C-alpha cells in the first residue's frame, strides 16, 4: 500500500464517518461485537458460503465436537453477489474467518490481499487430492485454499431415445455433430443439447477441454491467451452448430430448459459433475432414461475433459481464529462423514480421493442407467489437462456472456466475440497495473 494516499483516505473517512456517526446515533453500540468464544467455551468461527447444504455440514460438524463452533451465513451465489460481498468485506476489514472460493475465483480474491497462505498447514494432504483440484488451489506454488469438491464436465444423454433411434454416444466432437444431426432427423422439434450463451463459465469449461489455458504465470508476468488456438477451435465449432440450428442456445437450468428436457425436446446436456443433482431434482420422475458419458474429445488419442465449477474454501488473512477455521476446513474437505451428509441431498464429487470411494457407495445410483456415474466422473477427472485461472476470470465470464449476447441475432460470431474478449481482458489487466503479456508461451 502507498502509505500517504492510504492515510489521506483514512483521514477523510474518519472525518466523514464522524458526522455519519452522529446521524447513526450511537448505533455502533448496538451493532454487536460478538466474542470469539461461545458460552460453552468453543472457538467461534464465521463462514460465508453459498454452497447448498452447507448448513447441514456445519450442523454435523458442530454436533461432532466441542472445540470449534462454526456459524454460517449463506450469501448470494458467486457472481450473483457472493464474490462481491466477500471482496467488499475484505476491503472493509470485516471478512468472515472462512471465505467461499471457487477455483475460478481464487486468483481474483487473492488480488484483494485478503487470503491467508496455507502452504505449511496443508502440506500433509498434498497426495490425497485429485491433481487438478490440488493444482487449482496452488496457482503460484503456494497453497491458498482447501479444496472441497471438483467438477469435471460430462455429457448426459437420453439413453432410451438414443437406443430407440440407434444413435451412438459421441466420443469425439466430430461424432457429436453427427449425433446432433441424427437427433434433429429423428425428431425435428428436438435438439441434442443447448449451448448456454449466457454462461461464460460454461464456455470456459469447453475451452479447458480444448487444452489451451487462458492464463499462464511466467515469472512475474501474466500470459493471457483467451483467443488461443484451442479456444478459437471451440468457438468456431459451436458457431457452426448454432448457425446450422443443431443446438439450442438458451440457458441451462431455467424453467424453459427443464420443460424441454422433461418433454424430450432436449436429448442431452453438456454439464458437470454437479449436473447429476440438477437432473435428479429437475425431473425426479424420469428415472431410467438418462445416462452419463465423458465429454466428447478433440483428439481420441489424447482425450481431455474440461471442468466447470468446483468449490474450495480460504481463510481470511485477518482471521483471529485461523487454527480453528483450519480444523473445520480439514474436516469439511476430507472427512467421510461429509459425503454421507451430502449424499442425502446431492451427489457429492469430492476432490479428496478417499472420500470419493465413500461417495461411490453411499450415493444411490438408481436414477441413471448405463455406465456407473462415479466411474464416468473418475475417468473425466483423470483426463483434466492443466489450466490456470487469472485475476479477472470472474469479470471475464460476464464479458463473455455479454459478448455472446449478439450471437443469436447474428450480430457477431463466437470466434469474433472471443477475439474481442481477449483484447478487453488484456487491456483490463493492464489498467489494473498488472504485468501482462499476450499470446501463448514462447
Amino acid at each position, binding site marked *: 500500500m502507498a502509505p500517504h494516499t492510504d492515510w489521506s483516505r483514512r483521514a477523510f473517512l474518519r472525518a466523514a464517518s464522524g458526522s455519519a456517526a452522529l446521524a447513526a446515533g450511537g448505533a455502533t453500540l448496538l451493532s454487536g461485537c460478538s466474542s470469539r468464544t461461545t458460552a460453552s467455551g468453543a472457538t467461534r468461527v464465521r463462514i460465508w458460503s453459498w454452497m447448498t447444504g452447507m448448513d447441514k455440514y456445519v450442523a454435523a460438524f458442530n454436533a461432532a465436537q466441542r472445540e470449534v463452533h462454526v456459524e454460517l451465513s449463506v450469501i448470494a451465489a458467486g457472481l450473483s453477489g457472493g464474490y462481491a460481498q466477500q471482496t467488499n468485506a475484505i476491503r472493509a476489514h470485516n471478512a468472515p474467518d472462512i471465505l467461499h472460493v471457487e477455483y475460478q475465483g481464487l486468483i481474483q480474491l487473492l488480488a484483494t490481499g485478503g487470503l491467508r497462505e496455507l502452504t505449511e498447514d496443508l502440506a500433509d494432504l498434498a497426495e490425497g487430492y485429485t491433481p487438478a483440484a490440488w493444482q487449482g488451489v496452488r496457482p503460484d506454488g503456494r497453497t491458498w485454499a482447501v479444496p472441497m469438491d471438483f467438477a469435471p464436465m460430462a455429457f448426459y444423454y437420453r439413453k432410451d431415445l438414443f437406443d430407440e433411434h440407434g444413435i451412438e454416444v459421441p466420443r469425439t466432437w466430430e461424432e457429436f455433430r453427427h449425433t446432433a444431426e441424427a437427433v434433429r432427423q429423428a425428431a425435428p422439434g428436438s435438439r441434442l443439447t443447448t449451448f448456454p450463451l449466457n454462461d461464460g463459465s460454461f464456455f470456459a469449461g469447453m475451452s479447458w477441454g480444448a487444452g489451451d489455458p487462458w492464463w499462464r504465470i511466467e515469472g512475474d508476468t501474466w500470459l493471457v491467451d483467451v483467443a488461443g488456438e484451442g479456444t478459437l477451435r471451440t468457438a468456431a465449432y459451436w458457431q457452426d452448430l448454432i448457425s446450422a440450428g443443431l443446438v439450442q442456445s438458451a440457458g441451462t437450468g431455467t424453467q424453459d430448459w427443464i420443460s424441454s428436457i422433461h418433454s424430450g425436446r432436449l436429448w442431452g446436456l453438456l454439464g458437470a459433475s454437479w449436473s447429476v443433482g440438477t437432473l435428479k431434482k429437475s425431473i425426479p420422475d424420469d428415472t431410467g432414461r438418462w445416462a452419463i458419458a465423458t465429454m466428447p474429445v478433440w483428439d481420441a488419442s489424447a482425450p481431455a475433459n474440461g471442468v466447470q465449477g468446483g468449490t474450495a474454501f480460504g481463510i481470511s488473512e485477518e482471521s483471529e481464529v485461523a487454527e480453528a477455521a483450519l480444523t473445520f476446513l480439514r474436516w469439511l474437505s476430507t472427512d467421510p462423514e461429509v459425503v454421507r451428509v451430502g449424499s442425502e441431498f446431492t451427489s457429492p464429487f469430492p476432490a479428496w480421493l478417499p472420500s470419493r470411494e465413500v461417495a461411490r457407495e453411499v450415493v444411490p445410483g438408481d436414477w441413471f442407467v448405463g455406465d456407473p456415474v462415479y466411474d464416468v466422473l473418475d475417468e473425466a477427472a483423470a483426463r483434466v489437462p492443466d489450466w490456470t485461472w487469472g485475476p479477472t476470470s470472474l469479470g471475464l465470464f460476464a464479458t463473455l456472456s455479454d459478448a455472446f449476447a449478439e450471437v443469436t441475432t447474428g450480430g457477431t460470431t463466437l470466434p469474433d466475440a472471443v477475439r474481442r474478449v481477449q483484447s478487453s481482458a488484456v487491456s483490463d489487466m493492464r489498467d489494473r*497495473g498488472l504485468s501482462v503479456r499476450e499470446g501463448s508461451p514462447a
Partner: protein
Amino acid sequence: MTVLAPTTAEETRPPGAPAPGRPRRGGRAPLAALLLAGPFALLLLGTVLVPIGYALYLSLFTERLSGLGFDGPHDVFVWLGNYADVLGDGAFRDSVGNVAGYALVHVPLMLGIALVLALLLDSATVRLRQVWSLAVFLPYVVPGVIAGLIWAYLYSPNIGPLQDLLPWDPLGGNGVLPSLVTITTWQWTGYNMIIFYTALRTVPRDVLEAARVDGAGPLRTAWSVKVPTIRPTIFVALVFTVIGSLQLFTEPLVLRSFTGSVTSTWTPSLYVYEEAFISNDYGRAAAASMLLALASALLSALVMRLSARRSR
C-alpha cells in the same frame, strides 16, 4: 420514488410578503426548530451530503495492482482519469444509450396512459371509479424484484403465455427494451394515474361548467381545460419519471437470470454496481455515480425550465 405534487404557497407568494408562522420573539423558537428540524438535517447530512462528498473524493483515486497482483492493491491519485475512463468505456456509453432509448419509450407511454386513464376516471360517465383506480394502482405496491420475477416468468417460453402473444421476442436481444418498458409501465401507470386524477378533482367545477356552456365536448374540455390546469402536476411527475428511468436497476438485474440479452452493464446503475461491487473498481464506480447524479440534476433542471416556460 413518490410523485405527489403540491403547489405550495411558497412559490406563489409575492416577494416581500410576510412569511407565515412568524414566531414570537425570543430564544425558544430556534431551539424548538433545532429539535424539530435537527433529526432530518442530520440524516440528510450523514446519508446524502457526506456520501456525495465522499463519492466525489473517491472518484479521483484508483487502485493499482502490480506484477501478478498477489500482493494486493494500492491507491493512486489520478485527477479526472476515472471520468475519462468511464466516458471512454463503450460499455458505459451503451448503458447510457439503453437507458435513453428506454426512457424515450417509457416516459411518454406511461405518463400518457396514466393521464388518459385519469381523464377517463374523471369523466362523468364512469361507474365504479374506486374499483378501476384501485385495480390499476395495485402494481405500484409490488416490489421491483417481484415485479421483475413475475414478468420474467411470464416472458419465459413454455411457462408464460407472452412469448407467443407479443410481437417481439420478450427475452431476445431486441426484445429486452420493450419487455422492460412493459414491466415498469405496469408498475408506475396506476400511481401516476392516481396523482393526476387527484389533481383533476381540484379543477374548479365552475370552470368546467363554463366550458360546457360554451359548447365544448368532453374531449375538448379534457384537452383545453383540464390538462392545462394540472400541468404543474404533470411536469413534477415528468421529472420524477425521468430520474427514475435513469436509475433503472432492479428489473434488468432480475431479468439477467432469465436471459443473456441483458448485459451486466445494461444500465448506468448496473454499470455502477458492476464496477463497485463485482469488479471492485471503486474509483471508476464513484466517477460513474457522479456522472449519474449530474445527469439527473441537469435533466430535472431542463424539465423544470421547460415547465416554467410553458406555464408562463
